């Protein structure tokens, strides 16, 4: 019995063909992302409870966050979601050079996001707003303010950690892209990296309004 598809070097012996392998890889990635939703979901649920409990402090804390930096990072991440979608599209068409270029664009945008985040964190350090390190609040609601900034740093910190891991995954994939290992028949690693990166973008789509835009009209 002969199988044309089995000649592809990327086909693992425990799959019938590349189509089945691709479906299994995508499904496994979504199972992982469901777990990621649960992970961030716990943070968002805790945030929701304390936001209702200490709404005034959350408004005051949110108004200390710079919309310009947060907005810029939102634009950067959305743009990087587009560039990684383009990388997947080019991988589907076997355009090796373009996949590499879109990956580099995604990496630059990802590092830009982390750079902006670093600037924001350093400002928080100067303003003595980092709980557990140098938090100091002389006004009213010192405790609830500390809770707001704890959520701010844990949620954006976990998000930033995911970005750093994403950059690491790109560094791991780029040599394989250069070696032209991916094409229309086999691009699961590129596509699954794209799914991961889009997920991290989605987390930020919620973090931005929930952290930066509370009660701006008040």
């Amino acid at each position, binding site marked *: 019995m002969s199988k044309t598809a089995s000649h592809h070097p990327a086909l693992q012996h425990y799959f019938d*063909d590349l189509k089945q392998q691709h479906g299994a890889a995508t499904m496994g990635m979504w199972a992982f992302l469901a777990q990621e939703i649960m992970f961030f979901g716990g943070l968002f649920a805790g945030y929701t*409870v304390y936001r209702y409990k200490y709404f*005034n402090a959350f408004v005051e804390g949110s108004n200390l966050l710079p919309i310009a930096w947060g907005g810029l990072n939102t634009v950067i991440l959305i743009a990087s979601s587009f560039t990684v979608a383009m990388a997947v599209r080019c991988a589907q068409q076997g355009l090796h050079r373009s996949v590499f270029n879109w990956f580099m664009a995604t990496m630059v945008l990802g590092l830009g996001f982390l750079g902006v985040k670093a600037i924001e964190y350093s400002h928080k350090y100067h303003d003595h707003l980092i709980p557990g390190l140098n938090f100091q609040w002389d006004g009213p609601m010192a405790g609830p303010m500390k809770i707001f900034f704890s959520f701010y740093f844990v949620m954006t910190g976990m998000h930033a950690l995911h970005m750093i891991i994403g950059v690491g995954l790109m560094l791991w994939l780029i040599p394989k892209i250069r070696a032209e290992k991916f094409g229309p028949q086999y691009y699961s690693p590129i596509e699954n990296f794209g799914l991961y990166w889009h997920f991290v973008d989605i987390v930020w789509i919620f973090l931005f309004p929930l952290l930066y835009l509370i009660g701006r009209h008040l």
Partner: protein
Amino acid sequence: MSAHAPDHSHQGEHGQHEPHIVPMRVYFSVISCLFIFTAITVAVGFLELGPLNTPVALAIAIFKASLVVLFFMHVRYNTPLMWVFAGSGFFWLLILFALTMQDYVSRGWDDQGIPFLIQ
């Protein structure tokens, strides 16, 4: 393992993975929408909408996330089984929020009634 002469008439294109390539205009539409609604969510944040500020901000975020999931993440073009996998995480999130909040919202409800949500 067969070394040569694959039987095309028997196997044909079956088993070959053929990627679904999304048209460029879809990607451009999605990213335009995402940028526009980012601007809208910032603008709306400064408007006085009473109790509606948070629901509007969340609705915009959910809309943006849906665009990313459906088009950038290709769920729109995937099999029903994949919709279930993609939807399961978000469904779990609904359960988490519904049960957590119905607990905290209803805590302290008694004759005196200082609910948890109102300080």
